[in-house]
């Protein structure tokens, strides 16, 4: 459903992505792992049009999107949940979700549809339902992350881009978030591209993965293969394994 070929993305003169290619099949969870600064977030931003690639090709359901603007890309069915749980803090949970439905109301079948979607989100995250009238700013970190994901789901994405959903959260909460991601893929057939520092958890959830290093793709493989790969273990699965860390 998504196919990226040879994209090169720059921040000014600094090249953040070098000739990167990647694909996602319908219904897949694919994780992108790599160290800080490897280019993971840049790749998501290139996909969503926030930082368009300078060259290369991105096809989403056979439509080239690398030259489109972010709102056009959202309309095609790609939603990004940015790093750092960016919710509208002074608004209630319910209003936050309504804002996410802006698109679906305008293009995808009006208020009823929006209500339906909201019910679906509350079903996925019962904790949000319990707090639907609470201000987003008063939610815990984990709940804010759920809200951020929930809001993205209101646009009925075919492809969901998740940027470090586990960042700064307690392990229990991370488990909960990952459970929902798995459910989304299973029940809703949503295709998911997951960027994670927590490579182990991400690989346990994902079907396949890619490893980025200094803006270059150095590995593609099934999640099981990557979990067993010593380069991945050395770099991303904890440096406590000294015997493999020292080369």
């Amino acid at each position, binding site marked *: 459903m998504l*196919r990226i*070929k*040879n994209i*090169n993305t720059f921040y000014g003169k600094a090249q953040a992505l*070098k*000739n990167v*290619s*990647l*694909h996602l*099949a319908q219904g897949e969870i694919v994780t992108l792992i790599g160290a800080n600064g490897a280019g993971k977030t840049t790749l998501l931003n290139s996909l969503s049009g926030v930082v368009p690639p300078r060259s290369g090709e991105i096809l989403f359901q056979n439509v080239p999107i690398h030259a489109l603007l972010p709102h056009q890309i959202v309309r095609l069915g790609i939603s990004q949940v940015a790093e750092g749980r960016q919710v509208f803090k002074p608004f209630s949970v319910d209003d936050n979700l309504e804002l996410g439905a802006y698109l679906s109301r305008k293009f995808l079948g009006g208020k009823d549809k929006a209500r339906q979607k909201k019910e679906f989100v509350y079903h996925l995250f019962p904790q949000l339902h319990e707090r639907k009238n609470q201000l987003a700013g008063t939610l815990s970190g984990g709940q804010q992350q759920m809200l951020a994901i929930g809001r993205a789901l209101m646009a009925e994405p075919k492809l969901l881009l998740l940027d470090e959903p586990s960042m700064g959260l307690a392990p229990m909460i991370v488990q909960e978030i990952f459970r929902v991601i798995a459910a989304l893929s299973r029940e809703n057939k949503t295709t998911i591209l997951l960027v994670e520092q927590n490579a182990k958890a991400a690989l346990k959830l994902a079907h396949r993965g*890619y490893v980025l*290093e200094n803006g*270059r*793709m*150095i*590995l*593609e*493989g099934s999640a099981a*293969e990557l979990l*067993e*790969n*010593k*380069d991945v273990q050395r770099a991303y699965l904890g440096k406590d394994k000294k*015997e*493999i860390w020292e*080369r």
Partner: protein
Amino acid sequence: MNIWDAAHECMSRDELEQLQLERLQAVVNRAYKNVKHYRKVFNDQGIVAEDIRSLADLTRLPFTTKEDLQRNYPYGMFAVPLREVVRIHSASGTTSKPIVVGYTKNDIKTWANLAARFMTAAGVTHDDVIQITFRYGLFTGAFGIHYGAEAIGASVIPMGTGNTDKQIMIMQDYKTTVLVSTSGYALALAERMEELGVDPQSLSLKIGLFGGEPWSEKMRAEIESRLYLKAMDNYGVSEVLGPGVAGECSFRKGLHIYEDAFLPEIIDPETGRTLPPGAEGELVLTTLIREANPVIRFRTGDITRLDYAPCECGRTLARMERVARRCDDLLIIRGVNVYPAQIEEALFSAAGGEIPYQIVVDRKGAMDSLSVVMEVTERIFFTDLQKQKAFLEAVRKRITSVTGIQVEVRLVEAQSLPRRQGKIQKILDKRNI
């Protein structure tokens, strides 16, 4: 259907090409980062990984030859530290030093799954009893098929080579359904059964997986009619993996190359130029998922052609024609790869210098034989018969230790080997395969 990994074996060409590009880019990045040889070659030739933007760009990269692998003996081509290598095999080189091939844990798993593909395609299932008559050891043949069989869940009898009578006894008693051997050994088994009065029809044999050496359709027909099994071909390259590079499906119209794991090309062996699909030439392989030992554009020396037309079996993978010959002077004797240069080196070092000689390969019955005929010269002239015997024995041992196969060594009179324009034809292959 007899397909082990439909997700990869039946991918649309379009999807496959995207996956190949991603994997090619990753392997080039990794090889440059981790393998000194590739870093040096790329730097010397001004190649950067970003040059690879399509599969066609592969031609911008230099070939990897057997000599490159030999120069980096033993561990120079590894892309991972030795402690991550769980297995070390070897392939024949053109010198006394072999080529070292390493496998990580993942590589072994990959190998098992690739071998399981051609075995499944040949009809092997978890109900089968598989008798492996390849040598277990530094050679890759036995292990690859052993792992493939275990992945499928079949019962493996790891016989190893030789002891033909015992092989036949086990085949009878254990009710072997799948025979794994060289094509020559299959016929040797048939012959021995005849001598012993064992009726092959009384056996449980169903399938024969033959590889390790070129064998003709004529041989296939003979094996099938004498052993009452379906004889299937598979193809491996020790330098890149072992068995599990390609294998026949039930339609037997060429061997499906596992293109998600190996990117094949056909080149003109003389000029190195890439040839269009369908043309006959030397097979060149780039590993796409090997961890320990990635190889870029390895020249296999095998002559074949590729057919990209869809196959009736449902696989979308290209098919290579069965390999009948090579573009170098490699001799394949009873499934073992032997370079004449290896023999020459062993010979000259035993003789203490150059001597006139001829390598003779023949087929007696079903089995290949190798002999080396030397002309007596001053250097190896013995009045003492005892000494002459000792010398011949020393030569024989040395050649056997380097090549791994038995050889017969003979001395003949000076100037008695046939010469053409004053030169001895160094290799005489009398087999008519």
